[in-house]
């Protein structure tokens, strides 16, 4: 008797075949073996008062249901300047989406919905973006040309984003090498999605049109850690100007990944740089697995043209399938179809990402392109089979199947979506013969990704006939060049020279705090090492555990240390004052001292207590040894000593007195 196909075993075997290892166990050899290659597109909102091409305020956000009006649009693909249609555009057109925009008068105007032509570009934004371009060592263009970049997903009501290149061919240094930059552009931010169900997609327009820059690197990173390091560097560089927005969503990145023989896949909207390593690792291995699938299929078929899928509509009543989604589909009046995929036995359950297999690639596309909400299909290689026994036999009698070679997919969809669904399944399977489809993928915190769109190309660019080119004279560029902040690579060197612990660099640079450290050490008598460590550790702790007052700003740290120095207090007191300053920046420092119950004393007065405490410990101390005794005494005097005397002196004095 022939052995039944075991999808779980097949999945595990294909993991092995792909040589997949968890990231923590992966070495550079693993990445070299699969030819890991990655680059970035780092987006950063600029801190301006107004939006980029209209006079709406920037940074006014509205909740999902806080809107004054709605409008509805459909998007159609158009030709690029060079006379080509873009693949993404055609895909989005297939989805037949009704796109609804919610407008709030406080954050959007008729420009945002493409009912008014653009106003002249926001000069404040242009200058910030040019400064960052110069910091990124880019070749600054002679004339800025506003270009329209098509987005048919509806994320921009016009169907295109106005964007312009400011510089090309730059470089950023990471610890072990230089990463080359392709370009930097200034652009309008897009709408925020509220929902996307079936054929209805809803956006809000508050973020739309806010000035944003995009820094694009070459795929120079050869392992996941380099990608994160590069991304951090670019973000620190942007922050170093102090003219960019911070907070949730103000900086986002798309990560491009490929493996040897794979394709460029763009992982969109990665919110945190700490997610990058896992995502890039998994994507490289997903591609590697798809290449194995490609080889498998090409062994069976001479060419993909030889491969044909077969399908037929099924009647619900012919089966006893109890699978709840199918019952629901029946109740909804969806049509039910079986699709035979010749030669796909063992492919549907082939590993692609941790916890995912090739069948997910099909299901993801059915959701996005045919707009069929998940679950939208079942198949013959599910870990928990749904089509079994008698049902499988009935289907086999309708659709002649070679159970050792073929795989079956059963999907359900509203009548109008069936055609697109069938095309989508066929298209994805045909793509498997070529390896890795170029696409953009949506990321999840667990490091997995799902299909989002076909990867757009250069064909979606079109000159903006509504705006004139903006010349950038040498004099203008020179003037801007004179006001640049210090290089981030210099900042790294400073931190190292100051001997500040390396684990604080990330926080200090992310918040652009080196200038704060400089400000304190230049005007006061503290070492950079002490202040840097204080900021990198104590301030970070306070930020993580206390609520920041609206009018707190980092320059108040200088005032605090000035107060401590002028009052001749010991610097340890800073640690106790900081959280109060952070929450109540308008409280004067004397009051903060009172709040923390500080009492002024002298070293002499404090040390006078030591003999008594020695006596006491001798009587009551649990562990009679010198170290324990010293620690206990120090602990007893600590509160009085903070601010009044140096802690090390305290310890030394106790030791001396207790010899």
């Amino acid at each position, binding site marked *: 008797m022939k052995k039944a196909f075991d999808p779980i075993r097949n999945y595990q075997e294909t993991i092995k075949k792909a040589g997949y290892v968890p990231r923590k166990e992966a070495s550079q050899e693993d990445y070299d073996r699969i030819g890991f290659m990655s680059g970035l597109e780092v987006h950063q909102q600029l801190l301006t008062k107004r939006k980029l091409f209209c006079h709406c305020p920037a940074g006014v956000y509205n909740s999902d249901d806080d809107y004054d009006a709605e409008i509805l649009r459909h998007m159609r693909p158009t030709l690029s300047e060079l006379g080509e249609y873009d693949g993404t555009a055609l895909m989005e057109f297939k989805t037949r989406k009704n796109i609804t925009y919610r407008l709030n008068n406080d954050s959007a105007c008729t420009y945002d919905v493409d009912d008014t032509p653009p106003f002249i570009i926001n000069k404040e934004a242009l200058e910030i973006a040019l400064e960052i371009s110069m910091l990124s060592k880019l070749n600054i263009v002679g004339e800025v040309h506003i270009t329209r970049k098509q987005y048919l997903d509806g994320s921009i009501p016009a169907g295109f984003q106005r964007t312009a290149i400011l510089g090309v061919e730059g470089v950023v240094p990471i610890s072990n090498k230089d990463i080359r930059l392709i370009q930097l552009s200034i652009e309008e931010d897009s709408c925020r999605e509220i929902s996307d169900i079936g054929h209805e997609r809803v956006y809000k327009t508050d973020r739309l049109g806010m000035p944003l820059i995009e820094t694009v690197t070459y795929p120079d990173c050869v392992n996941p850690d380099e990608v994160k390091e590069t991304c951090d560097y670019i973000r620190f560089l942007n922050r170093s100007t102090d003219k960019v927005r911070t907070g949730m969503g103000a900086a986002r990145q798309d990560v491009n990944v490929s493996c040897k023989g794979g394709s460029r896949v763009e992982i969109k909207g990665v919110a945190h740089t700490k997610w990058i390593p896992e995502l890039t690792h998994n994507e490289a291995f997903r591609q590697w697995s798809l290449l194995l699938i490609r080889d498998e299929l090409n062994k069976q078929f001479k060419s993909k043209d030889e491969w044909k899928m077969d399908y037929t509509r099924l009647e619900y009543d012919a089966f006893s399938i109890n699978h709840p989604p199918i019952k629901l589909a029946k109740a909804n009046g969806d049509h039910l179809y079986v699709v035979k995929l010749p030669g796909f036995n063992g492919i549907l359950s082939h590993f692609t990402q941790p916890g995912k297999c090739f069948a997910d690639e099909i299901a993801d596309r059915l959701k996005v392109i045919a707009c069929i909400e998940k679950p939208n299909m079942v198949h013959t290689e599910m870990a928990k089979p749904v089509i079994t026994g008698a049902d499988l036999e009935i289907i086999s009698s309708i659709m002649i199947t070679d159970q050792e070679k073929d795989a079956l997919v059963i999907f359900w969809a509203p009548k109008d979506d069936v055609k697109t669904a069938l095309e989508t399944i066929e298209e994805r399977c045909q793509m498997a013969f070529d390896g890795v489809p170029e696409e953009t993928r949506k990321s999840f915190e667990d490091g997995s990704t799902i299909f989002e769109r076909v990867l757009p190309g250069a064909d979606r*660019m079109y*000159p903006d006939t509504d705006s004139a080119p903006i010349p950038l004279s040498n004099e203008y560029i020179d003037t801007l060049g004179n006001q640049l902040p210090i290089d981030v690579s210099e900042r790294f060197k400073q931190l190292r020279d100051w001997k500040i612990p390396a684990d604080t660099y990330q926080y200090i640079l992310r918040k652009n705090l080196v200038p704060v450290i400089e400000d304190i050490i230049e005007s006061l008598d503290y070492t950079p090492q002490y202040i840097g460590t204080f900021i990198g550790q104590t301030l970070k702790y306070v930020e993580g555990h206390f609520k920041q007052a609206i009018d707190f700003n980092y320059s108040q740290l200088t005032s605090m240390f000035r107060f401590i120095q002028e009052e001749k207090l010991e610097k340890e007191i800073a640690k106790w004052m900081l959280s109060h300053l952070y929450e109540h920046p308008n409280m004067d420092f004397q009051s903060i001292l009172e709040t923390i119950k500080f009492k002024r004393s002298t070293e002499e007065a404090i040390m006078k207590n030591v003999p008594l405490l020695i006596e006491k410990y001798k009587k009551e101390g649990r562990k009679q040894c010198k170290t324990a005794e010293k620690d206990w005494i120090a602990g007893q005097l600590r509160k009085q000593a903070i601010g009044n005397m140096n802690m090390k002196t305290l310890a030394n004095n106790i030791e001396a007195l207790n010899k």
Partner: protein
Amino acid sequence: MSEDLFQGYKGEALDLLKKYHVRVWGHAVINTTRGKFEGTVLPRSENDDDKHIVLKIITGYNVGVDVSTVQDMKEAGYKKANYAIPEKEFPYTENLPHVKLFGTGGTIASRLDYRTGAVIPAFSPGELYGAVPELADICNLDTEKVFAVFSENMGPKQYMSLAKAIGKEIENGIDGIVIGHGTDTLHHTGAALTFMCQNLPVPVILVGSQRSSDRPSSDAALNLMHAMKAAAESDIAEVQVCMFGPTSDEYGLLHKGTRVRKMHSSYRSTFRTIGDTPLAMISRTKITPIKKIYNKRRSDKNVVIKPYFEDKVTMLYYYPGMSADILDSMVDLGYKGIIIIGTGLGHVNKELYPAIERAQKKGVHMFMTLQTIWGYVQMFVYDTGRDMMAKGIIPLGNMLPEVAFIKLGWVLGQTNDHEEVKAMMLEPINDEITEREPYNGYLVYQGGVPEVEEFIKKVHK
């Protein structure tokens, strides 16, 4: 003529391209004091300066290179772009109505023109089918490019040749006519064709787009579908303007050619019927009549084409403090008819009286319309009105100023007899003067008012 290798470049930029033998569409590698730039040299818009060379770089973006920074450059390849909407033969479907589409230019079908940097009209049935394949489900289409001009360049000559072309098509038994047109003067043409093509047996639909078809959110495709449907299926055999109802992609409105006006410089829903309601609403699936009375479609071919126009007609937009010499000049320049656009109920100041009297003596035909756009001229209410009527100025009821201008040109193209001119002007051909204004003929909502805000939130704009 030899091919222009340096399209749009002039002065310094042209000299530089020639010096290094780099052509437009050539792949250029340029070394500058700001670093290296590489890409395809694009044509330059003729209104832009001669200090920059435009490159399309590999990522698809365009950048300008400042010629004063160029150290050297070379051409490392050449590939001319072929900008063409994919042309597919418009399919023929048995039993579908036959529609003729006249092209006049405008944004309904357009492509990029590097010379001016603007969009220029492109148009053929194949191109249209390639861009809007849905049209084939509505009708069998034939197209003819009557001329290609921007909306603002449309004039009497074009109205007359369009009218004749319409007459010929009706003679040939067409089921409906669509005219693609730039939107700026769509309503002028709407009025002209109403007067020139009378007793129409089939719909004549004027359509344009507020966003050129090179934009994914363009209203062109949906407007075209609506217009084709109206031409093919609608029972309303009049000259109509078909454009977006709301700015949303939801439905269009069919406006009478004599009562419609462009009311916003850039909105998609810019066309509005003034002083009345539109004829009908139209979506991709149905036509919903609003007006109960209209000229119905017929099977005969008894259209009357009256292609006349007198060019010496002008408009005088009155403003406070206007001096009489303006009107004097018009008369001296030989204008035979003047549409005055007065304030309020139809007024101008007394300083113009001598000039008006002089014009009357010279036989100039003068009519009064309104700056208020909405409402009727009423010259009996104040003395000034009565004074002016005494001086020969004839009030035109609620005729829109642009319509009055077109009608006067058309009338004077046929007669110069004052009484005849007056009678023809006051006898409406298709509601250019209506007898009554319905309560919903004037609707300009005021934003901010609570009930209006509530309405805007509920109903798509």
